[in-house]
Every structure is written in structure tokens, then in C-alpha cells.
């Protein structure tokens, strides 16, 4: 096979591989269900990143395979050397500038998504989250309950309402991760950290402690229930009447390894 032909074949194979890679990236279910508006944005970012980087990976692998195929040493070439090419300034400028531009474009897009995910909505509710070895507790302030503050081992959230979590730790660092929301933040003793989420899909999803916090770390789980606003209000009422201030009657919700 002539070099020209093998090169053409290789380019066709590379284009095909890129196409298959991109098609696969759509076919594979990479993520758990999307249960927040932030999840939609983050997953789109992931897909854009995968599509942008597949051609680069295919390019590198293709060049290696082509060189191994076409330029491998053949019998009788034991003492042969390649041509003394020391470099090519234009090529080097090209493969400095193009990746730099691509990277800046990707990081800029990620900032757009970040801004979108974190911007302050017109209306939001606040929920306190307290981590301690190895359970989660959730605090609903009077502004949410309309009465006494409520504390619970279960996290109920109204669908479609932005919630601002204020995270506190009683002992070591934990991380408050809701994979279905694609969001997490460390829960740090001594400071309050926070993040926003807008749940947009009804259902129950695991809450996972995602920073090593000791022996029971892998069991430090809870569940978030995203419910219609009316049901949320009903749940708050039931908490108010059941437990009074402190909500002592509710379960801890620290079940088995659900995440």
C-alpha cells in the first residue's frame, strides 16, 4: 500500500472513530437522574467537554498507531536513522495557540454555567444542614415553617423552589452531596458554607457524605424528598404539631448505603 493511501485510510478511520466516540458519549447513561435545574446545566457542560476532547484523544492515538504501522523498523533497517528534523516553529506555534484557545473557550463556558447555577433567584428558602459523625440533621427556620423552627432527620424540599443550604458541622469535615442535584460542598467546623439548588423533579434521592469523616463514613447517608409545594407545607405542619420546637419525634434517616 502506498503511503498516500495508508494515510487516507487512517484519516477515514480517525474520523469514523471520532464519530463513534461522540455517538457513544450520547448513548451511555453517565449520570443518575437529573433532579435540579443545576443538574441540567452541569450535564450539558459535561457533554460539551466530552465532545470537544474526543477528537484530541483520537488524534493522539491515531498518530501513534499510524507511526507504529508505517514507520516501524523493518528487517534490514537496523542501522537506519530517521531524517534529522529538529522542529518546525509554525507547527509549534500552532499547537500552542490552538489548545490554549480551546481551553480558554471551555473554561469560559464553564464560568457561564457556574454563574447560571449559583445566581441568586428572586425567591428562595433557607434550610440548615448539620453534619455530625455519622448523621445528617436538617433545620427549617421560622421563615420557612411560618411558626417555630423545625429540625428533622429527613430532608423535604418543595419542587421548583430554590433552596439555600447553610451547612454546619459539629465535629469534623463532612461533604453534603446530592448526586441527583450534581451539587456538593464541604461541611466545615467553625464556618458556615452554603450552596443553592432548585429541585425540579419529584422523587426521593440519596444524600451522601462525600468527605472521609471516620469509621461510619460510608454509612452517613440520608434521603432528600422532593415533593409538590402543597405537600411540603403539609409536611411542615405535621412536623410542627408532632415535635414542637426541635422536631424531636422525627427519625434520623441515616439508613444503609443508599448512595
Amino acid at each position, binding site marked *: 500500500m502506498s503511503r498516500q493511501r495508508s494515510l487516507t485510510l487512517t484519516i477515514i478511520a480517525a474520523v469514523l472513530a471520532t464519530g463513534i466516540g461522540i455517538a457513544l458519549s450520547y448513548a451511555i447513561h453517565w449520570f443518575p437522574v437529573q433532579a435540579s435545574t443545576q443538574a441540567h446545566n452541569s450535564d450539558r457542560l459535561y457533554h460539551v467537554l466530552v465532545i470537544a476532547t474526543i477528537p484530541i484523544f483520537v488524534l493522539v492515538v491515531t498518530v501513534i498507531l499510524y507511526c507504529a504501522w508505517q514507520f516501524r523498523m523493518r528487517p534490514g533497517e537496523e542501522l537506519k536513522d530517521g531524517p534529522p528534523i529538529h522542529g518546525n516553529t509554525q507547527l509549534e506555534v500552532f499547537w500552542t495557540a490552538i489548545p490554549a484557545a480551546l481551553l480558554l473557550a471551555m473554561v469560559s463556558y464553564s464560568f457561564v454555567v457556574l454563574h447560571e447555577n449559583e445566581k441568586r433567584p428572586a425567591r428562595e428558602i433557607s434550610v440548615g444542614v448539620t453534619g455530625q459523625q455519622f448523621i445528617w440533621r436538617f433545620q427549617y427556620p421560622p421563615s420557612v415553617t411560618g411558626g417555630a423552627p423545625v429540625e428533622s432527620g429527613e430532608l423535604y424540599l418543595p419542587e421548583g423552589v430554590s433552596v439555600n443550604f447553610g451547612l454546619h458541622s459539629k465535629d469534623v469535615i463532612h461533604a453534603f452531596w446530592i448526586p441527583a442535584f450534581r451539587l456538593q460542598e464541604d461541611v466545615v467546623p467553625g464556618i458556615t458554607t452554603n450552596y443553592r439548588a432548585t429541585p425540579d423533579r419529584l422523587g426521593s434521592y440519596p444524600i451522601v457524605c462525600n468527605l472521609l469523616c471516620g*469509621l461510619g463514613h460510608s454509612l452517613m447517608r440520608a434521603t432528600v424528598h422532593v415533593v409538590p409545594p402543597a405537600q411540603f407545607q403539609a409536611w411542615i405542619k405535621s412536623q410542627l404539631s408532632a415535635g414542637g420546637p426541635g422536631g424531636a419525634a422525627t427519625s434520623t434517616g441515616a439508613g444503609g448505603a443508599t448512595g
Partner: protein
Amino acid sequence: MAAKVRAPGFYRAGVLMVGGVVFATLLTWLVRMLTGHTTFHHYLSADAILTVALLAVPLMFLVGIGGFDYWFYWASGRPTRPEDHSGHGAHTWKDYFRINTDHKVIGIQYLVNSFFFLLVGGLIGMLMRAELAQPGARFVDPNTYNGLFSVHATLLIFLFMVPVFAGFGNFVIPLMIGAPDMAFPRLNALSFWLLPVAGFMMLGSFFAPGGAFADGWTAYTPLSINAPIGQTFFSVGVQFAGASSIMTALNFLVTIITMRAPGMSFFRMPLLVWANFATSLLVVIATPFIAASQFFVLLDRALGFGFFNAAKGGDVLMYQHVFWFYSHPAVYIMILPGFGIVSEIIAVKSRKPIFGYRMMAFSLLAIVGLGFTVWAHHMFTSGMASWIRIPMAITTAIIAVPTGIKVFSWLATLWRGVLRLDTPMLFALGFLTTFTLGGISGVMLAMIPFDIHVSATYFIVAHIHYVLFGGSLMTIFAAVYYWFPKMTGRMYDERLGKWHFWTTFVFLNLTFAPMHVIGLQGMPRRVADYAAKFADVNLFISIASFALGLSMLIFVYNIVTSWRGGPKAVANPWRGLTLEWQVSSPPPIFNFDRVPTVVGGPYEYGVPGAVHGILAPAPAAAGAGVGPNVVRSSSQ
């Protein structure tokens, strides 16, 4: 017997170590008595004595084997033995268990020690995979499991990745730059012997009351402050490993700056020398930060300083900043020497000059500079001020540019070469593919909204193993095969080497690629138990990881049998131009009979009559040196 105890060696070390325990006990007793811990029981606080002993006993060991003898003689005014290199070379295997100032002996000591801890760390990894093969608690309790992954990472980072490259550097760099030895041979010997101390301290933590340190190699406070005494083994062990790194890096810097052969300008240095130069800069600047972070932890633990205790005005996040200010540059410490190795192998095995030599050197320096500006990308979800994420994301994306320059330059070096696809080359090409994948997932992790979801998940585990196993370890295997003839004077078995490559390459991808997916789907790292939906993938990963472990047996068998009885190697089996190939295999005790003269670049393959260095004085006639010691690159 008395003479044996007085002479430097293991006998004296043993006696002094017992002395170290006694000293630690008495000192603790005395201090506790003076500070009012008056009941008898409290004089003998095991934790307090153990903490002091962990500092004192290793120092006594180093004194015992003779690591400080010269300086003690000098300080006490007794006659010192000037370094005449008469102790150079190893005549029996026992010489490798003594203080030796020969850079080639030290290089072998470094490498064998590192590979011992690779095997131990790998076995620990397989124990973890055995536990993870099925959900639910199977073999080990959570405390032991947490100890396993903590020790796994610590050993493989501090006792394998960092020192193994120092081992190659020790053996090869003086030869490459035409020097008889490293600049500070006694410091070199001491820097090696700190490593087994650190390694056995980390391993020994399994026998500590309360078990091994169990909060990851990151040892985040405040968890590490209140952990059992095993944590102190980590905090102190890191000091010894770190001191070793710093000593070796200083030694490399001085050696490379001052001991290059005549004619070897910086831009005639082989890229491995450049890579070690860049790495050493990182080490001397960054390593003091992890030393500081662990001293803070030690003081918090032992004496209640409260550096990281919010209730005492401490700052929890400060620990992470100081820790990552070392530990991010550390990933470049663990890959830049690998870049150097790959540059050597790809140029020689493609029979072409390295493409864009100057950009290859400059991109190393760019990585050194940028490497210090990205540390907080490990902290995107830490709760630090949110604006810090923005500049760190930008620098993290930009640092991929110099890395990309290197990858593309290697590809261009392959282009139109005459490729020898033997074991070192296969590992170098395998490195290019897996490292590119690890680099791509690294770029993705710079994107904050994505990182927020996958931070501390199995996606991170996949990324770091693609970079460190698929990246660094592949270059290390390549280097072992490439310099094996020079180090041992024997050839390895090529067929077994290729088997080793293909099994490693296939099973490393089968082990680590699926981890990306379970990470995205929500499996956290550092858990002994996980949700049932991840069971199938985890079983697959575990099986692949056992096969990956088995592939190491091919490597060990090949190396051991080839070292003992492989065919004798010629001086220059790869027809390399760099200076280490111009001396016999293994090299003479003093490396070069005469100081070589460097007259050209290190990679002038394909240039008719090109010469890098001249070992004998050049004959006056016949133009560019046609001496028996001059290896020319053959033209086409």
C-alpha cells in the same frame, strides 16, 4: 563483638535504637513530671512516649548505620576520612545494605527500595479491591479499610513515585552530564537511608494501638487531630521522606549546575537532565510546605496548639491550603522526570532528534511556574471563598498547554522515524495514550460545575490512577527496561518484557476506566461499602485489578532472572548518543577515565557524523573524531 557494635552498621544501629527508646521514655517522664502530671500512671503515657520515640529512634538508626559519621568526626575535631571514592562500587549484595557514597550504588538502592514498596502498596490495593468486590463488609472492618487506602496512597506516593525517579536520576544523571559522581555523595547516602525509615514507619502504623492512620494520605484536619496514635506515624514518616526528597533535589541542582562536562551547555543537556532540574526546583520549593503542615498536625495532636481547631481560633481550611501547596506541585514532581524518560526513549527508539528541543525544555519550566498557581483546584468544594475558584480554574486549564506541547512534540518525533517497537518503546507509547486520557479528565476537572459533582468520587480515583499509573508508572517501567543493560550489565528478556507491557496496558485500562463511570453515577471514594447498583462494575474492576497485579509477576520474574543470568550487555545496545551509553555496562567505578568533552546536541540522530560527546582526546587528524570511543549516528 565490641568492634562490631562500634563500627557503623546494623549492630550499632540496633543498640542505638534501644537507646532511643530509653531516651524517649526518660524525656517524656521528666517533662511530664516537671509539668505536673504527677501520678505514676501518667508518667508512662504510651502515646507521649511513642511520639517522642518516633522522632528519636529513626535518628538513632541513622547515626547507627553511619549516616552522620563524617560530620561527627569533623565536628569533634578527629581526623576525617576524605572522600577518595575508595568505598565506591558494590562488591557483594551486602554492600547495598551499607552506607555507600557511590551514586550508582545509591541509585540501585533507591530503585530496589522503591520497587519493594510498589509491591507492598500494590498488594494493599488488591486487598482493598477484594473488600470492594461485593457490597457490604466482607474481609476487613471499616477502620482497617480506611487504614489500607491511606497506607496504599502514602506508600505509593512518598515511598515509590517520588523516590523511584530520584533513583533513576541518581544512577543516570552524573553519567549523562559527564560527572564522576553527585556533588554531595555523603548527603546522597543519607538521603537514601531516610526512605526505608519512612517506609517502615508507615507500614508499622498497622501495629500501632488503634490501627494505621486512617484518614487518607491527605490527613485532613480536624479528623487527623483526634485520630489514634497511628496518625503520628504518618506525620513523622512524611518528615523523613520529605527530608530525603529535599536533600536529593538540592544534590541534583548543585550537580547539574556545577558538574556538567566541558561543552555541555544547558541547551546541550539531555531532556532527562532538564526534567530532573525542573523537578528538583519544585521539590526544594514545595516540600517544606507539607513538612510544615504535618508539624502543625503533630503539635496540635501532641501539645494542643490548636492551629486547626476553630474553637481555639484555628483555621480548618488553612490545613488544606498548606497541604495542597505542596501536594499539587507533587503531582508534577511525580510526572516531570517521566517526561524526561519518555523524551530519551522516543528520540533513541525513533532514531530522530527530539522535535522542538527548546520548547520541550521551556515547557518543563513553564509547568514548574504554573504548578504553584493551581493548588486550590483541589478545594473547589471545600468552602473557601468562592472567588478563589475562578483564577485557579483558569491556571489549571492553562497548565495543560505546556503539557500538550510535550505530547505533540513526542508525536512529531515519531513521525517518519525508524521505530524500534521494543519493550521500552512500547511502554513509552502506552504512556502517551493513557496519560493523554488522564490529562483530558484533568482538564475536565478544571471546569468548576463539573468538578463540584465529581469531587471526591471514583471519577477522581480514575483520574489520578490514569495519571500516576497510566502516566508515571508506565514511564518508570520504560526506564527500567531502557537502562537495565547499563545498570546491571545484562539484557532483559524481550519477549517477557512485551508480555509485561501488554498485560499491564490492557488490565490497567480495564481496572481504571470503569471507575470514571461509577464516579459520575455517584459512588464516593474512600468507602468500604457502597450501594448495590454499583456491585457489578466493582466486581469487574476487582477482577481486572487482580490480573493487573499478576502482570507484575512477569516483570519481577524477568528482572530477577535477567539480573542473575541474562546475556551480557554491550556498552551501547540502543546506539544512543548520550554519554551514559559511551561507557561500559555496567559503568566503571569512576564513570569516566577522562572527563568527556561535549561537542553537540544529545539527540542528533540522522545527522551524518554527529557526535554528542568525545571521551578520549580527539585525534588531530580525520576531522570530527574517528576514535574508537566515538559513537556516530549512522546516516541513511
